[in-house]
């Protein structure tokens, strides 16, 4: 599959014109969790960034937070504000690139010059004028996304694979010139979102209304709350929770299990090893499940959890549905809200005040944190011996979304979205690419060796600290702030 990060293959079984089964296969494995063993705790941010080049700051954010929890670091305000600013800039970069570079060629006919040659099929519905506008905005998107990374690098050293997020805060001092540079870049980004991204998504939704249904799946979502504030970064700004059966419940990490039957790992205890020849397995991704359910994560999940956490009876927009277009819209709307939020963050920075505060020794040997990456919920869990990492586990958003069939035979979220789809032309299934890319797959992230089926529980036994205190709870303040961030408007 092209226009995804990493190696992904999709296989659908078609009966007549309908997809009756689907398989998502993550094709690569590097073994970051195994590589992390024996390294220093403070290596976590820089090392885990290398998991993913398109959302490296999300792993840096998580890796730095894991180290902070281990050392009991209390970040100065500039430190946690900048962490969120950097993550916000990374998310904006990701969402703009996702829509224009990765998704748009599914819906818009580009001039057939490299790299746009050789497309088979079509179903292009936009007129000449709209197509021309979209192609022109593709070029503008290259520029806009580059500026998001420039904004990020001003405080993070470079992108991808930032240096600025260090244990204890952010290393770059707050100076007026940097704030000014970021303000100006952010202003340009906001203009791009308002003038191009949001209108273009609206145009697409108008031309492809059937895609509000195509790619639908049961409304089961998970969000850990976008952005974390405070000296320990333990308060999420948007609600966290698991949404199923029409209601939200607080996340209980003990209900998270990773199924391995269809993944290329042996199921032996205590350490599952890669087993590339395992019969019946078809992916390097595992199958995380919550109470046995496949949960979708990402912008649509954040919005759905946010909506459902609001006061009863309050409906700001119909839905959200769970179709392909809902995913594209949720990503765009959230990007605009994130831009406003990090604009506010920029204004609260205090030039000259400290940005880093590091404690000298490890105070907590077991840490598990969840944060929101561009693609959804990202969990880093670490067990420390002395100052060395004994165990490190990562559950990525793409592991949730692109998980294979689980031990009970239930498909993963992207597979669910594909199953039931009626293909207009099974010889040229354009629907498949559109459905799958709307999840923003990142297979460099998805494929990790993890602990066996009992999930977090294995590590949690005898180590009560960390999991419960890692900010899963939806606080009142979180809900209030979320009204500004995640719940304020419809498409």
């Amino acid at each position: 599959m092209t226009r995804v990060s990493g190696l992904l293959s999709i296989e659908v079984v078609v009966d007549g014109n309908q997809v009756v089964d689907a398989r998502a296969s993550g094709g690569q494995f590097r073994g970051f969790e195994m590589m992390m063993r024996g390294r220093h705790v403070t290596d976590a941010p820089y090392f885990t960034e290398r998991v993913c080049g398109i959302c490296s700051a999300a792993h840096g954010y998580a890796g730095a937070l894991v180290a902070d929890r281990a050392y009991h670091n209390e970040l100065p305000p500039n430190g946690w504000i900048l962490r969120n600013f950097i993550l916000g800039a990374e998310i904006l970069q990701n969402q703009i690139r996702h829509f224009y570079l990765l998704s748009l060629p599914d819906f818009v006919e580009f001039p057939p010059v490299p790299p746009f040659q050789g497309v088979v099929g079509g179903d292009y519905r936009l007129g000449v004028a709209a197509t021309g506008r979209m192609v022109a905005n593709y070029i503008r998107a290259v520029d806009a996304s580059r500026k998001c990374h420039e904004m990020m690098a001003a405080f993070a050293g470079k992108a991808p694979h930032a240096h600025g997020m260090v244990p204890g805060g952010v290393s770059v001092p707050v100076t007026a010139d940097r704030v000014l540079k970021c303000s100006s870049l952010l202003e340009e980004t906001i203009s791009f979102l308002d003038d191009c991204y949001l209108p273009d998504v609206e145009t697409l939704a108008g031309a492809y209304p059937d895609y509000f249904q195509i790619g639908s799946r049961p409304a089961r979502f998970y969000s850990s709350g976008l952005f974390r504030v405070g000296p320990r970064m333990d308060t999420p700004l948007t609600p966290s929770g698991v949404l199923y059966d029409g209601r939200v419940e607080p996340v209980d990490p003990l209900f998270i299990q990773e199924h391995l039957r269809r993944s290329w790992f042996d199921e032996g205890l205590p350490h599952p090893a890669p087993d590339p020849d395992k019969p019946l397995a078809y992916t390097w991704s595992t199958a995380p499940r919550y109470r046995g359910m496949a949960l979708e994560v990402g912008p649509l999940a954040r919005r759905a959890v946010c909506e459902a956490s609001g006061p009863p009876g309050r409906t700001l927009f119909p839905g959200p549905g769970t179709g392909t277009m809902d995913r594209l819209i949720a990503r765009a709307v959230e990007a605009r809200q994130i831009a406003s939020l990090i604009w506010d963050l920029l204004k609260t920075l205090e030039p000259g005040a400290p940005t880093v505060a590091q404690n000298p020794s490890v105070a907590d040997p077991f840490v598990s944190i969840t944060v929101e990456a561009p693609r959804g919920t990202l969990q880093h869990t670490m067990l420390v011996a002395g100052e060395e990492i004994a165990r490190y586990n990562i559950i990525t958003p793409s592991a949730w979304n692109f998980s294979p069939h689980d031990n009970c035979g239930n498909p993963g979220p992207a597979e669910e979205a594909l199953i039931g789809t009626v293909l207009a032309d099974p010889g040229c299934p354009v629907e498949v690419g559109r459905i799958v890319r709307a999840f923003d797959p990142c297979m460099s992230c998805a494929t990790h060796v993890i602990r066996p089926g009992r999930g977090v529980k294995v590590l949690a036994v005898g180590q009560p600290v960390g999991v419960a205190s890692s900010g899963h709870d939806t606080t009142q303040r979180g809900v209030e702030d979320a009204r500004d961030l995640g719940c304020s408007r419809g498409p």
Partner: protein
Amino acid sequence: MDYCDFRDLVTCSGENTTAVLIRELNRFLDQAAKPKPPVIWFEANACSGDSISLFNAAGPGLEQILSSIIDLRYSNALMAAEGPAAIEELAAAATANAGVFVLVVEGAIPVAARGRYGIVSWRGPMGTAGDAVTVASIVEWLGSLAGSVVAVGTCATHGGPSAARPNPSGSLGTSAALGRRDVINVTGCPAHPDWTMATLAHLLMYGPPGLDRWGRPTLIYGDTVHRHCQRRSYFDRGEFATGPGRRECMFEAGCVGPVTHSDCPYRQWNSYVNWPVKASTPCIGCTTPEFPDGSTPFFAPLPVKRPGSPPGGHKEGIRV
């Protein structure tokens, strides 16, 4: 543009290196009445970071690179075609341009377990033994047809993070995987877009660039980070930062600038706005063939993480 001007342009990087390169390359292609060179950009076991870094090329950027400079026949990240049509594009591009096309490899080549740690697609039903099309087999095939091979990013050049210990996937750099010594190595995690563009431009205009013993263009990797570091005066006076976020020399905080060859201090990153030491963090040596194992613990001083290093890391044995 004569060669000295080219060299100066690359080594004395202004804010418009890529812009000038693109203009000059266009002029060259016009004068030589040459078609745009066909390029196949193949992503192996990678994080896509080197592609993203190229997308960050500044003034002009990716759009000009694609429209005027290279004929990108295959790119997993960008191409519109998908599924079997994409594989057909790859096969057609490689066979029609055999002996001519530039193969750019991003990411390492996993060779353990017959390459099953990197699977591009399936010939038959998924999961069926023997039907996996592996990264290793495709890179080997493309390598046998390519006119020249450029490895971009430290994973592609020497294994990099994909091959970090204990290297479960048995990942190798391109040169090692292909058994080919003429691979041009553009190291970096990720590679700076100017490094990639300058290398491609050199290849097209003047042929293969001069390489150091690690296969890297000397044009880019001729000097150490330490030599050109803005904080060199702190080092010379023995004023060392005790950790990240301080203004002094980062040597004691883990900097491997003295043994890392790159032009980061004067080139800088992301539209030339910053670089790791300017961001008050240590250089972690991402352009070294040993990265990342030779650089961890990232915040431990060089002699601690590389016990063979001379004390202080600067007086003898290392060209600074």
